[in-house]
Every structure is written in structure tokens, then in C-alpha cells.
């Protein structure tokens, strides 16, 4: 099955931009535009409120988190639709349902490589050069993949019975972007609200990426623990749900 997933993900990926004019450049254009908007709003218009320490410019601070976030949120968005938009295939083929979700999430995560290259180039331009410590971020990225996959498997199977989920997921992801937080530093949040951030496992993913890439810090062991446990848990819940519901989903589509 793994071979099937890899083979199809790749060919879907190649074919997915076939009919759009700018084809693969959308992978870069979309995050770049968002980056421009946010950095303009926050560093030019709302300047006084946001003040990241250590003399790092806001745009860098933002880009490190928002670029992976875009891939992550797209993966969940598409992953949630993975069963409902492939009903015509599921009705005909003897392929387990988790394959469809995995394929979709993997396809989006292929963009992560492109985005990371973009990010490294961007950091380099701003005087932050490669260090060996950067290899530490491999763990958060792998965990992020399994986290997204778990959520996608869970939501895509529930979505067959409650189509509200595919309507709600877009705005929920938007909200999550502000809660994590992606677009502003977490330490400017009033103390009374900071617990919201600390109870959110996603915070540890993006903060560890930030710590390593910008500040060249080690990642706290507590962070690693949270990453691994939360992504494994999410993955297990998703896989359990999708296999448990497989028979019901096939009966009702």
C-alpha cells in the first residue's frame, strides 16, 4: 500500500497543476502574498504593538512560522475533503480509506520542501546563515506531518456523516492561526491568557521551529516530548476512527 500511496501522490501532484496557467509557481505565490500582507500590516501599520526582541525584523519572525503553517493548514483542508471528494473512486475501488487521506496530506506536504527552500533563501538574504542545529527541526516537521494526517483521517471520516465539518474547517484553521500564535510573538500576550497558548500542542511545533531557525537555540526536551506524544496520539485517534468507520462509510455513500 505504501508503494501505491507514493506512486499516486507523485502523479497526482504532477497532474494537479496541469490546467492552471502559472502551474507550479502557485506553490510559492500563495505564501509570498500572505507574507507581504501580514508583514506590511504588522510592521508598518501596527508597528508599536509588535516588537520582537533581539533585533530580528518582524518579517523574518513571521515567515519562519507562517510558511510551514500554510502548508499545514492546506494539508488539513484538503485532507478533510479527501473522502468526500473521492467518493466516486471509493465506490469502485478496493483501496482502504486511510490511503486517500494519506495521499492528500502527503501531496500538500510535498510543497513543504519548496516552501522550506524559499525560507532558507529568505533567511540567508537577511543574514541568518545555515547552522548544523537546523537539522533539529526535522523532528517537528515529521511530527507535524503525522499530526496533520491524524486530524485529516479523523475529520474526513466524520465529515461523511456531518458535512458541516467541511464548511467549518476553513474558519477553524483561521482561528487556530491566531491562537497558536503564528502572526505575533506569544510573549506579548497578557499573562492571564497565556495558558491558552501553553495548552495548545501546536504552539510547541511552531515555537520550536522558530527557536531553532531564528535564534539558533536547542530545542527543550519538554518540547520534544509534547511533539512526539501529541502527534502520535492524533495519528492513533485518526487511524482508529477511519478504520472503525470504513464499513459504515462504504455502506452510506
Amino acid at each position, binding site marked *: 500500500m505504501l508503494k501505491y500511496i507514493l506512486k499516486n501522490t507523485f502523479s497526482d501532484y504532477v497532474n494537479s497543476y*496541469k490546467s492552471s496557467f502559472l502551474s507550479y509557481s502557485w506553490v510559492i505565490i500563495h505564501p509570498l502574498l500572505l507574507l507581504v500582507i501580514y508583514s506590511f500590516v504588522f510592521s508598518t501599520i501596527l508597528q508599536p504593538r509588535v516588537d520582537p526582541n533581539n533585533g530580528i525584523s518582524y518579517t523574518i519572525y513571521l515567515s519562519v512560522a507562517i510558511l510551514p503553517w500554510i502548508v499545514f493548514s492546506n494539508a488539513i483542508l484538503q485532507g478533510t475533503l479527501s473522502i468526500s471528494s473521492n467518493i466516486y*473512486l471509493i465506490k469502485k*475501488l478496493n483501496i482502504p480509506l486511510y490511503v486517500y487521506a494519506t495521499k492528500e496530506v502527503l501531496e500538500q506536504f510535498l510543497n513543504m520542501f519548496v516552501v522550506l527552500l524559499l525560507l532558507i533563501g529568505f533567511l540567508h538574504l537577511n543574514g541568518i546563515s545555515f547552522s548544523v542545529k537546523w537539522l533539529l527541526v526535522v523532528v517537528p516537521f515529521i511530527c507535524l506531518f503525522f499530526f496533520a494526517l491524524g486530524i485529516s483521517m479523523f475529520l474526513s471520516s466524520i465529515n461523511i*456523516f456531518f458535512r458541516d465539518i467541511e464548511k467549518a474547517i476553513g474558519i477553524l484553521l483561521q482561528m487556530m492561526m491566531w491562537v497558536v500564535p503564528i502572526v505575533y510573538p506569544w510573549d506579548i500576550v497578557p499573562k492571564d491568557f497565556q495558558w491558552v497558548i501553553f495548552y495548545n500542542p501546536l504552539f510547541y511545533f511552531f515555537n520550536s521551529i522558530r527557536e531553532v531557525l531564528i535564534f539558533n537555540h536547542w530545542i527543550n526536551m519538554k518540547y520534544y516530548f509534547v511533539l512526539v506524544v501529541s502527534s502520535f496520539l492524533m495519528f492513533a485517534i485518526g487511524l482508529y476512527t477511519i478504520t472503525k468507520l470504513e464499513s459504515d462509510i462504504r455502506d452510506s455513500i
Partner: protein
Amino acid sequence: MGNVIAVKNLTKSFKLFHSNKDRLLNIIPFVNKKFDMHTSLVGISFEVKKGEFVSIIGKNGSGKSTLLKILCGVLQKTGGEYIVNGSIVSLLELGTGFNPELSGRENIISSSKTMNFDLKYIYSKMDELEAFADLEEYFDMPIKTYSSGMYVRLAMSLFLHLKPDVFIIDEALSVGDIFFQQKCFAKIEQMRKNGVSFLFVSHDINTVLNMSDRVLLLEHSRQIYFGDKHEACRLYIRDKRALGQNKIVETGKSSKNLLSNLVQDSVGLLALNITDENGINTLDVDLGKSLTFKIQYELIKKFEKPTVSLVFRNRHNILITVVSYQIEHDKRYVNIKIPFNIEGGEYSFDLNIIEIDTLTTKIIPILEFKNIGYVRVLFDYLNQIPPFIGLVGLDTKVEFE
């Protein structure tokens, strides 16, 4: 020979939940389950041997499709057991994973990927497949430019070139024009000789009788009979009281200028006109009525026994009859009147001039026109009682003493 498919006491029921909330609660472990059951298959048992052709018949809603879907693995069984030894390919999957932006060739590859077929094997068969689909330059054009017939031809040729152990066919086979159908049936016959087993679902009793070794009859989710095809069809017809589903719509296609002149140095076929009993050019005929084939010919060289022959085949590529008459050298026209006492449907015909060697009685073809067109025999099987059942109505006499 071993069984390719063995089904024992197979049962399928669907859970009907009162609300989606109940359904969701049901996935949480140790929660009491509230739902009604709707059974759609009860106690099905049969087996398919290697190389065997098994048909499944039954009214709409008798569970035929559900059974096939379980065997394909698209639905999951509720009870009983089934074993499938080997790979299954199903025509239910026809055209899955086709992308309108890609060309025919690219689609063959990409949909083989989606359906998890062996890519190396597909590549090795690509030329054969291309020839079979007969799409010419369209094969390398995006399939959004295809007509629906071309689309089906592409999809069918992919499926008919696979090498499964079991091949599942449903009504999808009755698509495309009659010539393509004949090609498909010929290919199926060939696959059967190579030891591929078939599972066939149809309402068309004649096809079932024609092709099957054994027949499974389902009714109201239950198995009524499995075994001899004649007995199964008898039980089915008795229940149904109507034979065949082929409802034919009249169109009145003209038969003028069917031939483009073909003249060789020795012989020429100049024109073919087909008229009905009222002298109107047509290719449609009511069952039991006759058509006159008026053939204009020219014999330039001297032949010993020149003969004109008309070859009729039905949509399963089965030879119905060859009508042949010796023609004379000093005449220009031959009129052949043929009464169509055959089952309603479409029949392709060839027109040949042949010579029969009197010494060896061998047939030497001189001039051949393949698949000139098709005659449609019309009969309203739904509202009228047919004069005969089966392929051909023989000229019978009856006397009482």
C-alpha cells in the same frame, strides 16, 4: 481445477441509524448500539471454477450489485465467508481515474496507477491496446475532446487487455456500436480460453444462456438457485413473464449508397440497395418481415462458380447465417430477399464475392466488404407476445389429428 471464488453463506446487512448522532456514538467503544438492520443478502453460497463463466441474474434490487461489490472488496460483508483466489478486475471500475486534461495514452497510465494495476504489464500491452481502441490520432489527444463512444472504447480496451483471474462484467458491456461490441465479445472469448473466470450480471437472458456455464439466480436478497443455466433461466422467466429488455427505438435509417464502388481487375461490386417490402430504402425491419438486398455486380473475368454471400452476425459476434447464391456472368443485378425470423436486435453484415472450387470444394474469397452496416430487427418485447423465443424462429408446421 480449483475454485477461484468460493462463497459460503454470505450475508450483508446495512445499518440504518435513526440519526447521525447515533451513528457517531456507535464508534465510541462500549456504547450500546441503537440501529435497525436492513438485510440485502442472505445465505449466498456458490463457487466459480478456473475458466468458468458464471452469470448472476435476478430482478432489480435482488442484491446482484451488492454481491459483486462485496467480492470486489468495495463493500464489507456482515456474515459468512468468501474466498477469492487471485486478482479481480471489474467493469464497475470502467473509466475510474480518468482525467479530462490528459491524453488517452496518459490516462491509460494514470488510471492504471489509481486502480493499482501492474504498470509494466500495461506498458508492454500498449500497442495492442491502442490498436484495439482504434482511436487513431485521438489516442494522443486530451480525452475531453472525445465523444462518449470513444471514451468507452478507450476504457474498455484497457480492461480487456488486463490479465486478471476473475473478470466481473455488468451491463457496461452493452455500450458502443455493434462492431465494437463484437470485438469485445471476441476478446472475452479469447480470455476465457486462457483460463480467466467470469462473473456476469445481466437482464438479457439470451446473452446469459449463450455465454454461461452456470447461473446463480437471486430474488429478494435470497439465493433461489445455483447450477444449470437452462433451469435457472426457466425459473427466472417463469417469474418474470417477459423476455428480454431490448426495447428498440425506430429511427428509419436509410440504406442508400452503402457501397463505395470496389472494382478489381477481375470483378466489381458496384452498388448495394436494401429495401423493405414496400420498396423503401431502409435498414430497419420488423421481426418476421423481409428485406431485399439488391446487389449490382460486374464479372470481368470468367469464374467457375462465382458466388455472392451475405454474412450476418449478432452483437455477440455469433455467426447467424451466411446467405449465398451463385451469380451469372451475363447478368448485372441480383436481388436476394431475406425474411428476418430472428430475435430483435442489431445485426452486422458483410458482403463478399467468393469462388467455390468444384474439385476441392474450397472457398476462395475474391472481393470482401466487411461490416458494411447493420440491420435492425425491431420488436416490442415489452408489450407484445413474441412469435418465438430465442435466437431464431424456425419455419415450423403443425398438424392436429
